[in-house]
């Protein structure tokens, strides 16, 4: 089965930023689902595994880093590209995020255009590697 539009999961506790990211990514043609905390993000991901996840690092309850680790631990999302949104510009925080399994990050405040480009390139890479190893990923991105 071919998914017509890549599904992107956006998790941020700030409503304005959820709308910002969701608006910009919808305009790029993605289907966007949003979660306002880590628990909701994991529940949504378990119900329908996204093709990519954009996750805020500092959320109440489960942090973005914990969500990243949980997504990596679940077979359905083990190789889903994850992009972190972080307000902490220090390099140590970024390293922790990447070590937790994230593929990329943007530092707040970010340019929506830049975010959209990074999302596109991560989806592109994921699609290419799913072609190289078709058994690994059950998604087809168009």
């Amino acid at each position, binding site marked *: 089965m071919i998914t017509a539009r890549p599904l992107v999961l956006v998790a941020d506790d700030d409503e304005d930023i959820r709308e*910002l990211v969701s608006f910009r990514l919808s305009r790029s043609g993605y289907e966007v689902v949003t979660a306002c905390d880590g628990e909701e993000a994991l529940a949504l991901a378990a119900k329908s595994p996204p093709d990519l996840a954009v996750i805020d690092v500092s959320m109440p309850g489960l942090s973005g880093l914990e969500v990243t680790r949980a997504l990596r631990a679940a077979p359905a999302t083990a190789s889903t590209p994850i992009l972190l949104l972080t307000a902490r510009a220090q390099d140590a925080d970024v390293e922790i995020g990447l070590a937790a399994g994230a593929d990329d990050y943007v530092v*707040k405040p970010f*340019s929506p255009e830049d975010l959209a480009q990074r999302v596109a390139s991560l989806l592109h890479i994921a699609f290419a590697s799913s072609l190289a190893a078709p058994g690994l990923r059950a998604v087809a991105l168009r």
Partner: protein
Amino acid sequence: MSAAFATRSTAELLAENERLQEVDQMKDELIALVSHELRTPLTSIVGYLELLTDPEAEPLTEQQARFLSIISRSAERLLSLISDLLLMAQVESGGVLLDREALDLGAIAEDCVASARPTAAKRGVELEVEIAATPVYGDRRCLSEVVDNLLSNALKFTPDGGSVTVRVARTESTVLLEVADTGIGIPPEEQAQLFSKFFRTRGAIKRAVQGTGLGLSIVKAIVDAHGGEVDVESEVSKGSTFRVALPAEEWPGLREVT
């Protein structure tokens, strides 16, 4: 008697030490919190501004576009203030942590000059370069910050029709970065304080030049961390020249840069 006194003061010192450590930790936590709390609303401001001024958005009237550019400039100022405060806090709590690699200081300076060109053109200031490829072992982000800060100061304090020159060169033992301007200059009695935190010259205050007084103290902290030196030569109404000298040590891989 003296033993009891000594014991008490040791206990007191320990308590005082603990208290200071708590204060220090509170300061770090406060900075992290403030940084996060400020960056989140700024993300909305900057992000939605971009959506409004995007080519795909509804066309704006000239006045709307101008007002939005003012909002955008103010947001940028806030952001650079937050970055400066964070960097300063980092410096205060144990110094700048350098991520060193073999770099070309000339290329870094060229990049900084390129991004300063629009500002220079708007101010009617000639921006000149005498830049040679110059290998250095340093932290890319920090060294860019040094050039950016010196360049932005030079442009701020140089009136219309003046010029700013950026030089990068290497001698036997030193890598030199020089930013010279034909600006308002700094009186001798103020030169010693220039690199202190939050210090602003009377000239800057009188002319209402925007700034926090953090730029040069950040420059000094970064240069110190690289084992270098920074100084200034200036004459009122003639201009200022800031000179940064970094040790030109031989490091593995440094040759590959040239």
